[in-house]
């Protein structure tokens, strides 16, 4: 039995005077012990709200949850706040993209780690402090005893993320959810953090739900991958199967649009046209249709179902998938201009209201903007934005 089994999870934001937003629309996946499962997709596809729902960190008000998320026989979606609090720490822990906003700025890092040890593991005083130093050491923070006394802002981005991982693994959780844990970091630091996560999985058997927009990270880390688009999984497969034969036009398109370090200079990129704003409701057909090269009339008759056109265990939600060597029936590409024009007339997605911060330091990490999600680093100085002319 998998450790976590998510079945038809849906998350709808409701609000007075606003149209309901179905951010996640029937997502299913399993995570086993010692396994890394990836949720990958562009900003706004529902990755972060999925993780927050699993952690019980979404507000009760204004959010409708559907489906089940069984962890160890318990449905995380229906647990009481108290029961959920007990789950966090020992069972489930989360790492956010932005460690600075998940750490309390006015409390030294060490105290934040020892607090967790005292609260969840009942350790006291010197023992807790020693364990905290051991934890920092384990996640590769040099000179841990000194670092324990420092405040979050005194640490570099990489060190902060390590501190956050130390806090997350302090209670040896059986499952770790990492939401873009390396997106804000430089690539050499990212490599260090990814190694650290691999070690946790391989040596402690931790189950890892890895959320990222980076297919490179997925290719190296995840056993099983779910590609999300507009709140639905459009392709789910083992990582080798997915990368060897990306079959959903969106997954296929994503791989064609990424510049690869090992591709010769001048090899053209094949972008996907339009943007995530060019979508139709899943209820009416395939949400990806306005951007899809494989689009046929059939795509507009209801939600495409997950099928396994290229092999068992390789799910694809598409009526006209990318099958190499098979004649593709297309209606012809919807004119690019039409899509562009439509995008310009339809007002771009309004700046979305963010989930109000919740109690507890864990809730703060998701205060990122849609695009900030993909941004590697929010650079501090404002003057650089000024026009040069």
């Amino acid at each position: 039995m998998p450790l976590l089994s998510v079945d038809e999870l849906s998350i709808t934001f409701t609000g007075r005077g606003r149209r309901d937003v179905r951010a996640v629309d029937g997502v299913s996946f399993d995570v086993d012990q010692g396994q890394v499962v990836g949720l990958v997709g562009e900003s706004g596809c529902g990755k972060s709200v999925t993780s927050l729902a699993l952690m019980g960190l979404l507000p009760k008000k204004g959010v409708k949850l559907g489906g089940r998320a069984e962890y160890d026989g318990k449905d995380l979606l229906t647990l009481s706040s108290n029961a959920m609090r007990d789950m966090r720490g020992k069972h489930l822990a989360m790492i956010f993209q932005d460690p600075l906003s998940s750490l309390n700025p006015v409390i030294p890092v060490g105290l934040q780690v020892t607090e967790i040890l005292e609260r969840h593991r009942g350790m006291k005083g010197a023992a807790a402090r020693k364990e905290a130093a051991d934890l920092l050491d384990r996640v590769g923070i040099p000179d841990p005893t000194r670092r324990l006394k420092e405040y979050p802002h005194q640490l570099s981005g990489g060190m902060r993320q390590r501190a956050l991982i130390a806090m997350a693994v302090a209670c040896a959780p059986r499952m770790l959810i990492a939401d873009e844990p390396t997106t804000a970091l430089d690539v050499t630091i990212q490599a260090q953090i990814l190694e650290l996560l691999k070690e946790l999985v391989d040596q402690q058997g931790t189950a890892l739900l890895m959320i990222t927009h980076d297919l490179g990270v997925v290719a190296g880390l995840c056993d099983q991958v779910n590609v999300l688009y507009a709140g639905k999984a459009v392709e789910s497969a083992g990582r080798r199967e997915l990368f060897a034969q990306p079959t959903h036009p969106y997954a296929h398109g994503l791989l064609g649009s990424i510049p690869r370090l090992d591709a010769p200079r001048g090899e053209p990129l094949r972008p996907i046209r339009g943007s995530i704003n060019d979508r139709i409701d899943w209820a009416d057909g395939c949400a990806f249709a306005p951007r899809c090269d494989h689009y046929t009339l059939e795509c507009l008759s209801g939600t495409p179902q997950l099928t396994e056109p290229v092999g068992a265990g390789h799910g694809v939600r598409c009526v006209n998938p990318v099958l190499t060597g098979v004649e593709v029936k297309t209606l012809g590409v919807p004119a690019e201009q039409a899509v562009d024009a439509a995008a310009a007339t339809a007002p771009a997605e309004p700046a979305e209201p963010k989930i109000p911060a919740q109690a507890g330091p864990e809730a703060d990490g998701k205060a990122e903007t849609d695009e900030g999600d993909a941004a590697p680093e929010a650079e501090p100085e404002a003057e650089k934005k000024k026009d040069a002319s």
Partner: protein
Amino acid sequence: MSLLELDDVKVHFPVKKGLIFDRTVGHVYAVDGVSLSVEEGQTYGLVGESGCGKTTLGRSVLRLVDITDGSVNFDGTDLAKLPAEEMRTFRRRLQMVFQDPLGSLNPRQNIESILSEGMAAHGIGGTREERREKIRDILAKVGLPANALARYPHEFSGGQRQRIGIARALVLEPDVIICDEPVSALDVSIQAQVINLLEELQESLGLTYLVIAHDLAVVRHISDVIGVMYLGSLVEEAPSDALYAEPRHPYTKALMSAVPVPDPEVEDRRERILLTGDLPSPANPPAGCRFHTRCPWAQDTLCATERPALKDVGGGHKVACHFAAEIAAGTVERTAASVVPATREEMADRVVETPAE
């Protein structure tokens, strides 16, 4: 002669302390002696991790920061020494495109106003009607509908906003565009659209680019020549393919080995060189080779005491490392840093090794 030539450019920011007397207590050596040339019609890619001075270098070309020392030769004129009024005429010919399209566009100005502002300031386009004509033409070139003119920045998606940023540069008919992280705020499918657009525009308008980015794969894709920066200086420079084929500087090797490739076959075989520790502060850079505190190949002699100069090692490939030749020949051994086995299976019985091959 190259269109744009930087010679030993330094930008040092004073670090001030004190409430009443602004005492300068030190300097941030953001850019500390960079020389490079950008050929007309080509793309020079500047890559390096955050804080290494890429943005500052780009801004120094436009004199948006004070140049402490060195020269910036553009089309035969040293911009570094130009009086402010004369710099204005050059500003038009050197434009900048920024990372954050929304942050660099005034939310209360419509697109026409944003685009015509610079034209008016530089006396381009004659009458209002002529200007509008020109703007329409540029909008079409960057792939925006003509009805965008009367709209406001927030009505556009991230990728479209970046197109507006590019259009704003193009209406001034520049020779050089400095693109500072032009796609890093965009989703991958949109990144590719903007990269392709930049390439098409270069082709059709004969533009020269200085592209600044932290993403090595993006830089490799778009650049003819790549310069790798570390702590304010160039450590390696080479044609794009040559740099990938044989990175010579230890930092470049580590950087390249850390970039994940979206292909499990590659990922499982990729040897990673993990650097230890963090980037030192540019306010207090290490003596000698600036990379010696993290360099897996650092030697007991020279590395900690003498700063290596950027030297041509043949084929337009330049490296700033005392031991570049020995490292390439394999006669100098790696002294630290763990080499990570490629596969998860190998990970399981991993030993941190100091290879002695």
